[in-house]
């Protein structure tokens, strides 16, 4: 049976109020993954009606999903149901919340000023960023990603330059010497690229050699270098390195990034955006 002792109240007392019951149910769910109404009713010494009402309210606030006779965590539910929209699988097969990707993209989009010339390299984070850029005025966008290019093909107030080269069907982007040659002609305000690994000494790496070469070349042709990286990419190496993050580079990651990484970046005078997306706007 669930151990009551594991809920520690520094000031003593039992879960009597609604708020304390929510906390209890939440903790119970953390450990057991599912709750039953009659078990909770016994544990908390309240009627089943009260528990049902609690679960109903918690469901309304997105804390759990009710089932017959109990409730489960939302994550579990999402895993079972065919809802690929709020999940994204990275290269290693780890599920990443789409929300985190969107928050990275929204934060990176704030770095783009109206009238900028920017370069977006291929990848899911950059594609999410491109979607966030629809409202910006008079941008010039260079890209090697055909999905990004087609996304902007109908927006009138932006200029789009699609780099040429050999198409890589897996990446849905062009690479190779043709692309590198094309790149020689441009200089941009900001280059956005996503990396698959960021090592202990801020070494940045990607999964393919052709992308590493492209990024290395692109880095010479930009004023500001913006690195997009999921928190899962830290302390990892993705084999093809293209250099280290330097002071002056901007790194955008999601809010699940561990504290030690934040500290290490701060101490090295590297700018890190953690995309907290916490402020709900003034009222």
């Amino acid at each position, binding site marked *: 049976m669930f151990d009551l002792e594991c*809920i520690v*109240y*520094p*000031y003593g007392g039992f879960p009597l*109020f*609604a*708020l*304390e019951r*929510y*906390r209890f149910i*939440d*903790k119970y769910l953390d450990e057991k993954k599912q709750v039953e109404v009659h078990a909770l009713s016994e544990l908390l010494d309240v009627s089943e009606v009260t528990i049902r009402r*609690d679960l109903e*309210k*918690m469901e*309304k*606030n*997105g*804390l759990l999903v009710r089932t017959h006779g109990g409730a489960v965590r939302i994550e579990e539910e999402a895993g079972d149901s065919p809802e690929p929209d709020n999940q994204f699988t990275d290269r290693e097969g780890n599920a990443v919340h789409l929300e985190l990707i969107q928050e990275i993209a929204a934060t990176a989009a*704030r*770095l783009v*000023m109206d009238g900028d010339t920017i370069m977006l390299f291929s990848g899911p984070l950059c594609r999410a960023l491109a979607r966030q850029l629809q409202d910006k005025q008079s941008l010039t966008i260079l890209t090697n990603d055909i999905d990004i290019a087609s996304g902007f093909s109908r927006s009138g107030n932006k200029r789009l330059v699609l780099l040429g080269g050999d198409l890589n069907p897996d990446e849905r982007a062009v690479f190779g010497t043709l692309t590198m040659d094309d790149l020689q002609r441009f200089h941009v305000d900001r280059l956005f690229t996503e990396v698959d690994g960021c090592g202990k000494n801020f070494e940045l790496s990607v999964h393919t050699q052709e992308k590493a070469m492209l990024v290395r070349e692109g880095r010479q042709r930009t004023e500001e270098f913006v690195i997009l990286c999921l928190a899962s990419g830290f302390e990892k190496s993705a084999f093809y390195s293209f250099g280290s993050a330097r*002071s*002056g580079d901007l790194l955008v990651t999601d*809010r699940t990034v561990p*504290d*030690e990484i*934040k*500290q290490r*970046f*701060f*101490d*090295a*005078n*590297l*700018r*890190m*955006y*953690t*995309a*907290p*997306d*916490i*402020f*709900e*706007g*003034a*009222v």
Partner: protein
Amino acid sequence: MTTECRVFELKNVSKRFNESFALDTINLSLLSGEVHVIIGENGSGKTALLRLMAGLYAPDSGKFFYNGQEQQFQGFSQARQLGIMYRPQEPQLFDNLSIAENLFFDHLPRNKLSGLDTIRLYDKTKKLLTELGITLNPQALAGTLGYAQRQLLEAAKACIGNNALVALDEPTASLAEPEREILFSIVRRLRESGASIVYVSHRLDEVLKIGDKVSVMRHGKIVDTMPIENIDKSSLVHRMTGELMTERYPRFTVPKGNALLEVQNLHSGHILRGVTFTLKKQEILGITGLMGSGRTRLAQCLFGAVEPSRGTILLDGKPVRFRSPQDALNRGIALVPEDRVENCILRSQDLVLNLTVASLRRFKKTTGLDSAHMFSLVKDYSDRIGLRPGKPGDYPEFYSGGNQQKVSVARWLAKRSRIYIFDEPTKGIDASSKVDVYNAISDMVSKGASVILVSSDMEEILGMCDRVLVLTGGKIVCDLPRDKVTQEQILEYATGEEE
């Protein structure tokens, strides 16, 4: 200065306070009849060093020598017996005792029956005060004195008895020119009597005026000690600062809106003397200045915690008057205060209440509070601001300083105000919490809020703010955009003499 007698010596003294602050291998020797000035930025460890010398802290390692003999300090009273006198920055007087009694508290004159010899007490006091040029009635109660007079009195105490070492912590922080002169005369008098004086100051002009030797402190270390003849002002400023890291602050370039908050000729007692500035929408305005320059009072005035004595505050172009913080909150101004333990964390209350207490109105429903909504908001906020583990049932009083500060910031973010005043938002917290706080500030500015960042951390001011104001002696002496101002300039403005 004829007798080269080493009164006091510290050899390789270290003391660790917390993960971000420590005194590191301090070597210092103090001679009799010499004024040794210690300068450094806020938080460089000057006060901590004085307190160590006065026996208030025990060092972790290192040796003390007093008159050539090694000493193990057992505490403050033993240091006093050896003739070490420490005068803290805040005057500590007994309000219900007279000036004379306060002055001679440790040396009260006794008559033959060992009762208090009042006549001699007042006589001696009168004589001393006249010598020092202080015009005060010895019989008046200390509680009736103004702040500057209290500071002078505190310094005058050092003239009584036999003090071999006098440590003064920023004795002139809020003194005007005539009072400063009196204080200098006290210091000179002590020097002539053969005492060794350690004098902590922020102000470079003072250093040149009364110092014999100068030590510069930075990050808990003494980086340089030199005689006064060898220095000039600009090299001193340079030594105080060191290398700057301003790239690491996650700021956005946001187009600024119209003027949102205009402060005109704001006065508050003797602390603020005509402050004028404008805050634009979506701007981060940095206000810096030395201790005692009126930074915190300014924040309090804008938040309605203290009512200004003169001047106008315009919000959206209309004059407003805040009689209480409630007024300011209703108008959309929030203050994240400096001292999170004192002014923010609710003891014996869990994270849910600590995060929602400022915004309870959001959770109101006909039968009371919507606890389920509160609960889910707390989970969401603590996750987003990086509180780890951040369980709703936690008690924030047991959190680390950084996590407590994040609780404080998140609480006011939930209030959804238009203008946020941050008073020293990252003082004494770890680097990863700083990253979280800065990202939260950037997030709110990019979503339409405006921020006044009051700070003494120069890197933070230069790294985060769009515009920098320097407050000196209750006035704004510098108002420049971020890219037009350097740390040297700010320090020079902040330490400069008042007109």
